[in-house]
C-alpha cells in the first residue's frame, strides 16, 4: 500500500515522503478513515449541512423567537402565511429588515367575517431581544416509578436570536392554533434527533452484547441467539411498533412517551448489527491475540470488550450512522399516525398529523415547510454514512 501512496507523490522530497510514510504507518484507524473521508466532497458537504441542522436542533430555544407550545401562540394570526423579512416596500428601502404588521379586520367588504390582512406599517427586526424564558441544562424526567425521576433546574435564559419590535414574526407561518411553525420545526429537529440517538444507543448495546456473545461462544449459544435474531428480523417492525405503541396509556406524560418510543425503537432495531458483529467475531475468535488474552486469564466479557470489538470499531460506527436515519424515520412515521409522540412535544410526525386533510393541503401549503428540511437532514445523514462506509473500507485504498 505504501507503494501506491508514494506513486501519488513522485516529486516530493525524500524526507517528506518518509515522514508521510511514517505518518501513514503510525496513524490510528480513525485517522486513516478521516483522511479518506476528507477526500469525498459530497460527504464533506453533507457533514457540514448535517452539522448546521444539528446545531439548529441543539440551540432551538435560542434560535426560535417563540415558545413552540401553546403558551407561545399568536392568537391573532392563526393559519397565518409565512412572513419574510424584507428591505424595501412602496415607501422606500431601509437597511434594517422589516415585515409588515398584520391586523384582524371585520367590515362590510368581508361580509363581516374576521380576516387577517396586511397593513402598511413596518415592524423592524430586532436582534437578541428578550423573549420567552427557557432553561439550559434543565432535565425533568417523570417516568413511571420513582427511582428514575430526575429533576435539574438548569439556568434560565430569555435572549433569542431575533424578534420584532412589536407583535410577532412568523418565518414559516403559523398553524391552526397560531403556534409558530419556525419555532416548532427547530424543536422538532431536536426531539427527532434525540429519540433517534437514544434508540440507536439501545439497539447498539443490545447488538454488541448479543452479537458478541453469540460469536464468541459459538455452539448452541450461537444457534439460540441466531434463531432469536432471525425471528426478530422477520417480524415487520412498524406493525410491531404499532402494536406496542397502541398500548401506551393516554395519561402518560410526554417524557415517558418519549422514553418508551425510543426503547421500542431500540428493542426492535438491533438484529442487523448483531449479525454483523457475530460474523466478524466468529471469524476473529481463533486469532492468536484472542488465545493470548485467554491464556493470560482474561474473562470472556473482557476479551470481547477490550480485544474483539475494537478491531471492528470502524464498521460499527458506520453502521450507527447509517441506521440513525431509519430510527428517525420510524419515529416520524409512528408519530404521524398518532401512536408516537403527542402534541405538546414537537416532532416532525406530530407536525404532519394535520396535513392529510384536503383543505389543509389546498389552503395552507406552508404546513409542508418542515418536510423538505427533514428530507434534507435524512439525505445528509445518508450521504455522510455512505462516505464513512467508503472511507472505512480498506479496499478503497487500492483503487
Amino acid at each position, binding site marked *: 500500500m505504501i507503494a501506491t501512496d508514494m506513486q501519488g507523490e513522485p516529486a516530493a522530497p525524500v524526507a517528506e515522503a518518509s515522514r508521510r510514510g511514517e505518518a501513514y504507518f503510525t496513524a490510528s484507524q480513525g485517522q486513516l478513515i478521516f483522511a479518506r473521508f476528507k477526500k469525498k466532497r459530497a460527504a464533506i458537504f453533507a457533514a457540514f449541512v448535517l452539522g448546521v441542522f444539528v446545531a439548529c436542533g441543539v440551540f432551538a430555544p435560542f434560535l426560535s423567537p417563540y415558545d413552540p407550545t401553546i403558551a407561545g401562540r399568536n392568537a391573532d394570526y392563526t393559519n397565518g402565511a409565512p412572513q419574510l423579512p424584507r428591505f424595501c416596500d412602496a415607501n422606500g428601502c431601509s437597511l434594517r429588515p422589516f415585515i409588515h404588521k398584520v391586523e384582524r379586520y371585520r367590515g362590510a367588504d368581508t361580509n363581516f367575517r374576521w380576516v387577517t390582512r396586511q397593513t402598511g406599517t413596518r415592524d423592524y427586526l430586532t436582534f437578541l431581544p428578550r423573549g420567552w424564558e427557557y432553561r439550559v441544562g434543565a432535565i425533568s424526567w417523570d417516568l413511571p416509578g420513582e427511582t428514575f425521576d430526575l429533576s435539574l433546574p438548569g439556568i434560565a435564559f430569555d435572549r433569542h436570536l431575533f424578534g420584532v419590535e412589536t407583535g410577532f414574526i412568523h418565518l414559516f407561518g403559523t398553524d391552526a392554533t397560531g403556534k409558530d411553525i419556525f419555532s416548532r420545526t427547530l424543536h422538532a429537529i431536536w426531539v427527532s434527533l434525540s429519540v433517534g440517538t437514544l434508540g440507536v444507543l439501545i439497539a447498539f448495546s443490545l447488538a454488541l452484547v448479543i452479537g458478541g456473545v453469540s460469536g464468541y461462544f459459538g455452539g448452541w449459544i450461537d444457534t439460540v441467539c441466531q434463531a432469536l435474531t432471525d425471528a426478530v428480523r422477520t*417480524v415487520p417492525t412498524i*406493525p410491531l411498533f404499532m402494536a406496542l405503541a397502541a*398500548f401506551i396509556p393516554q395519561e402518560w406524560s410526554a417524557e415517558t412517551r418519549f422514553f418508551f418510543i425510543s426503547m421500542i425503537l431500540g428493542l426492535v432495531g438491533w438484529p442487523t448489527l448483531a449479525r454483523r458483529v457475530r460474523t466478524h467475531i466468529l471469524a476473529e475468535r481463533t486469532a492468536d491475540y484472542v488465545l493470548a488474552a485467554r491464556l493470560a486469564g482474561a474473562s470472556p466479557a473482557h476479551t470481547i470488550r477490550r480485544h474483539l470489538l475494537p478491531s471492528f470499531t470502524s464498521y460499527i460506527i458506520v453502521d450507527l450512522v447509517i441506521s440513525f436515519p431509519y430510527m428517525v424515520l420510524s419515529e416520524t412515521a409512528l408519530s404521524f399516525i398518532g401512536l408516537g409522540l403527542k402534541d405538546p412535544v414537537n416532532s416532525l410526525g406530530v407536525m404532519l398529523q394535520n396535513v392529510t386533510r384536503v383543505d389543509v393541503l389546498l389552503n395552507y401549503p406552508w404546513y409542508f415547510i418542515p418536510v423538505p428540511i427533514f428530507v434534507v437532514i435524512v439525505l445528509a445523514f*445518508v450521504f455522510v454514512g455512505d462516505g464513512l462506509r467508503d472511507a472505512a473500507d480498506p479496499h478503497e485504498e487500492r483503487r
Partner: protein
Amino acid sequence: MAAFVRFIATRAGMALLTLLLVSFIVFSLMELVPGNCAERYIAYKSTQGQIITEADIRAEEIRMGLDRPFLERWGGWVWGVFTRGDFGESCLWRVEVNQLIGDKFLLSLGICVAALVLTYLIAIPVGILSATMRGGAFDTGLRIVSYLGLALPNFLLALGVMLASTVLFQDTLAGLFSAQYRDAPWSLDKVLDLMSRVWLPIGILAWSATAIQLQTVRALLSDEKDKLYVTAARARGVSGARLLWRYPARHSLGPVVNSIGFDLNRIFNDLPIVAAVLTLTEAGSLLLDALARSNDQQLAGAIIFLLTASIVAVNFLTDIVLAVIDPRVRAGLM
C-alpha cells in the same frame, strides 16, 4: 436427490421454528400490555350501564381461560393456529378473528406482493444498466434518485402525491374503491374498479424498496462485471446484453433473490402508514384499527403473525429457488 430433500426438510424445519419463536415473541408482547381482555370487555360493558363487580371480572377471566399459566395459553394459541388456522376470538368485537380479517388480509398481501414485483421489475434492469454505465450522467442521476428513496419515506411521498393530485386534478386519488363498490360483493366490475385505483398505493409502496434494491443490484454487479471470467467470455466473442445476462448478472443476483423476504418486510412496514395517508380503509388500515384504535390484542397478534408467516414463507421459497437455479448454492448442499 436425497440431499436435496434433506435440505428442503431442514429449511422447512427452520422456518417452522422461526414462526414458533415469532409467535412466542408476539404473544409475550401482547401479554405484557397492562390490562387483560376480560377487564377491557367488562369495562366496555360498564359503559353500557351495567354494574360490574370484581367477581364478574374474575368469572369472565375464567371463562376466557385467562387464569391458566402463560405457557399453557401460548401453547393453546399456537396449536389452534397451526392445526386449524384458528386465531381465536377478537377481544373487543367478540367475533372470530378469521372472520374479521377475511379477505382484507389477502387484499393487503396482494398489494404488497404487487409492489414487490414492481420493485424487482424496475430495480434489476435499471440497476444493471446503471452498473454498466458507472460514473456517467445516468448513473449519477439514478444514485441521487435512490438516495431520495431513502430520505423521502413512502408516507411523505404519498402526502406529496395527494397534494399534487389535489392541486392539479381536484381529486385526492384516495381509497381503494369508488363509493358505489365499497360495500358491494366481489364482482368483475368491482375488480376493475380496484384495478383503476390500486396502482397508486402499489407504486408508492414500491418507491423506497426500489431505491434500496437499485443500490444493491448496482453494487453487486459492479463487483462482478470486471472479473476475469467475464473478460474470458468476452475474449470468446460473447458480448453485449448476452454477455451481461449469461455471466455477471446471473451470478450477482443471488443475494437479491435471497433478500426478497426482507423486501417484503420493508413493504409491510410501510403498508399501514401509506394506507392511513391514502385512506385505504379496505387493506392496511385494518392493522391500524386493530392496533391503535381498539387495542385488540388478539386481532393485532393474528395480523402480525400472518404478516410474519408470509415473510417466512417467502424466505423459505427463495432458499429453495436459489438452490435450484444457482449451481454454486447447490454444490454447497451436496
